[in-house]
């Protein structure tokens, strides 16, 4: 059975999902420090419902919004673009050029010299 999404759609979907997930993790961690979503909303002077919608996907998350949310959570967002080899390296797997049969590695398609985006939210010191 073929995949429902093409390579481009898959990559976009995973990236957007990953950013939202990072933010959900950040909010879950903030909650452990007694910082609620309502607190963050007050800090940013927005309705708490806006943040809920940004996290669940029913409001658009711009890069500026992510920066604002990170600031309100006391975090620093970082962004990087990685090659497939770098991703494999990070995962502790042999990279394509280290393997005898390079063509068997993960079957990536398309123009993908540059592969998935990653966004990390790092706690302020």
């Amino acid at each position: 059975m073929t995949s429902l999404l093409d390579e481009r759609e898959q990559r976009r979907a995973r990236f957007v999902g990953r950013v939202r997930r990072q933010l959900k993790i950040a909010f879950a961690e903030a909650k452990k420090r007694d910082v609620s979503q309502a607190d963050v909303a007050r800090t940013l002077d927005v309705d708490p419902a806006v943040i809920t919608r940004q996290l669940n996907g029913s409001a658009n998350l711009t890069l500026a919004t992510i920066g604002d949310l990170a600031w309100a959570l006391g975090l620093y967002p970082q962004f990087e673009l990685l090659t497939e080899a770098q991703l494999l390296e990070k995962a502790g797997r042999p990279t394509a050029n280290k393997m005898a049969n390079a063509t068997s590695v993960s079957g990536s398609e398309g123009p993908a010299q540059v592969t998935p985006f990653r966004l990390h939210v790092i706690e302020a010191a």
Partner: protein
Amino acid sequence: MTSKSTITSLRLQQKLFPLVLRLEPGEAAHRFVYGTPGFMTWWSQELPKLPMDVEEVLSPKEQIFALLTDFASGLRMDYPKELEEMKPPEGGIWEFQTVDVRVFGFFPERNHFIGVFGDSTKRCHDYGLHRGYMNECIRICDRELVLDRIFGGKIDDVIT
């Protein structure tokens, strides 16, 4: 007494099909998603046509693909509105949730999810379809697939 089926036997009988969820480089499959023939038809024919929330940047098929692929890659699933057991929890039926999509099914074993139905979030809310989908999932699990399912009510009971 009817003997219980297994995922393997149902796949051989073409009563279950694995869902194609392509992982990214460096990711490994920790969990698995299957669909009944009805679910697979919905996945390939109905899901691409579902309406999209006006402010959402991802299409419905992209939303559920991202969520299920995160699931398959072994990421945590304990954030609200991602994977929740339906009420009452005695049914052992679980629901994947995105802004625009709902997928209903169950876990015959840990880390193995069987998708039975999918629908749009809006339709589920507007027509109150949750209870009906839950009951149908139970019937299909018990009577058509004849599979065990995990009962528990906690996410740790169904995934590692």
